[in-house]
């Protein structure tokens, strides 16, 4: 098997990662770099638990061949944690009880962050559309939608202030 060395910038750090030909970005992030916020809910692109940002765009790590990320900037929830832009989203998820088992939550947070970057004041329909690739089996989605609405309000309120 041929191994290739990828050059990635992951959560702000330049990293060289040797990978085999079939490796996915999910395996690189979870198994090699120990970024365990990247959850493996299906490895089929069907649940959104492994949502990450590649060059700022929302992507599913499980469907991304590792080689396709060569030279890219990859951001996981670990990289967003405690940043000014994510804290209000985290706070809103907490206040709205927008997680139960929490397995889908990292993906939801990353998807929400991607949404609010490109659309700081999304409508309810736009929120639902943006999160439609992220499944949750516990909450019935209502608290998650409310959490995103509140986070958007908090963030845009901050910006306008």
């Amino acid at each position, binding site marked *: 098997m041929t191994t290739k060395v990828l050059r990635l910038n992951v959560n702000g750090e330049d990293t060289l990662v040797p990978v085999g030909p079939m490796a996915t970005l999910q395996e690189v992030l979870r198994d090699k770099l120990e970024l*365990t*916020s990247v*959850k493996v*809910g299906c490895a089929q692109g069907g649940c959104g638990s492994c949502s990450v940002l590649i060059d700022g765009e929302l992507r599913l790590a499980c469907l991304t061949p590792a080689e396709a990320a060569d030279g890219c900037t990859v951001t996981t929830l670990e990289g967003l944690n405690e940043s000014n832009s994510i804290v209000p989203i985290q706070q809103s998820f907490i206040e709205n009880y927008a997680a139960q088992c*929490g397995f889908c*939550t990292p993906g939801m*947070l990353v998807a929400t962050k991607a949404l609010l970057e490109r659309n700081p004041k999304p409508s309810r329909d736009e929120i639902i559309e943006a999160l439609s690739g992220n499944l949750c089996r516990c909450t019935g989605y209502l608290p998650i939608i409310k959490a995103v609405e509140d986070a958007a309000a908090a963030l845009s309120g901050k910006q306008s202030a």
Partner: protein
Amino acid sequence: MALKDLKIVGKSVRLRDLDTHVRGQTTYYEDVRIPRMLHLKMYRSPHPHAKILKIDTTEAAKQPGVVCVLTHEDMPGKKTFTPLAAIGVAPEDEPILAFDKVRWKGEPIAAVVAESEAAAKAAAPKVKVTFEELPAVFDVEEALKAEAPIVTPWGKNYYQYPDDHAASQIRYGDVERAFAEADHIVEDKYQTKPIEHAPLETTGCVAKPEGNGRYTVYTNIQALYFALDNTAAIVGLSPAKLRFVGGTVGGGFGGKVDIQVEPIATLAAIKTKRPVKYKYSREDEMRVSSTRAAWRIYVKDGVMNDGRIVARKITTYQDAGAYIRLSSYGTMKHAGHMPGPYTIPNVSVDAYCVFTNRPPSSAMRGFGVMSGSYAIELQMDKIAAVTGVDPWQLRLINAYRNGDMKAHRKAADDAALVETIQAAAQLAGQALPADFAAMSSDDRKGG
């Protein structure tokens, strides 16, 4: 009517794990870092019912990265188990790895253990099994016919309850006499289909040898000691040699109580002296993990013109699939729950736990009761239509009150169905006549 003087019970304090959930820092079983881990993938039966003539693992064992391939021959002691044996469920019908027969499409036959998940997945299809296909049965009532293919090792396609009863049963009053005296007979058939728990985190575990004769199993099982005891019996170790670690799980809904991954992963860890991870893929979770059972429920009610239900006869078939697992318990819970939250003086229930060549079903949120509530609440609407009694009033008339004798001969207490219906009516803007609005679970005035 909440209890007074409570300081913290009754308050909406924050969910304990939320802070770590939103930072991706909650530790689930597979977030525990374990070095030099092997991975296990299962070769499974492609047939719903077949004799196993030969199992050949030679080719699979030669595949790159494969460390070993386990079959029934590697079982140290017993080859079959049933998870509730400790509370008297019998016989031990389910092979840990199939040996003489397979009874459902997806039944585990050979466990391939390899250095990587990809290597195990690539090698599993190389296991060669020679089958002789057998006729299969998929429908519960077909399975109970005399000419049906036999699924179980004991020769009958139903679970045998004590004293040779073919069903878990309730006998209370005299339903036939009450039917004869009733103004209306209302009958129907209700059917639910298999449903997947679909937790976002799939079923899985890692079994790790500690080097001192003990094994730690990191698992997302919903019942740690239950899995520990069953695993010990299967792998031939004293329970004292096992430590099960979990407690923080990515959704369960009843799907993570079947003890399907822990025994075989532990056995592989014993054989290889390495940590072994056995995690269901999403496809495994959809096709191989147990489902909520399909239930077929026949309800026959004797009803008076004023809406009083005077007799209820229920015949239920729970589709257990190929093995018992928790199903015989679920059937009993179903029977014990009948006739639902209503006081009916004559009740007869026959609840059959039926075996078919389907994937084994098991517990799911509301085990045995969800199906019963479903059938009864559709039946109540049919009674309302037949008698012309309003559906809300029909339920209030028949709702059980404190002190009423239930069909299983325990007097009702903690009843609050009347008040709950009244509250729902108010919430939904449904006006109730004054006498119905004044009803109480403490007496039968007006009802």
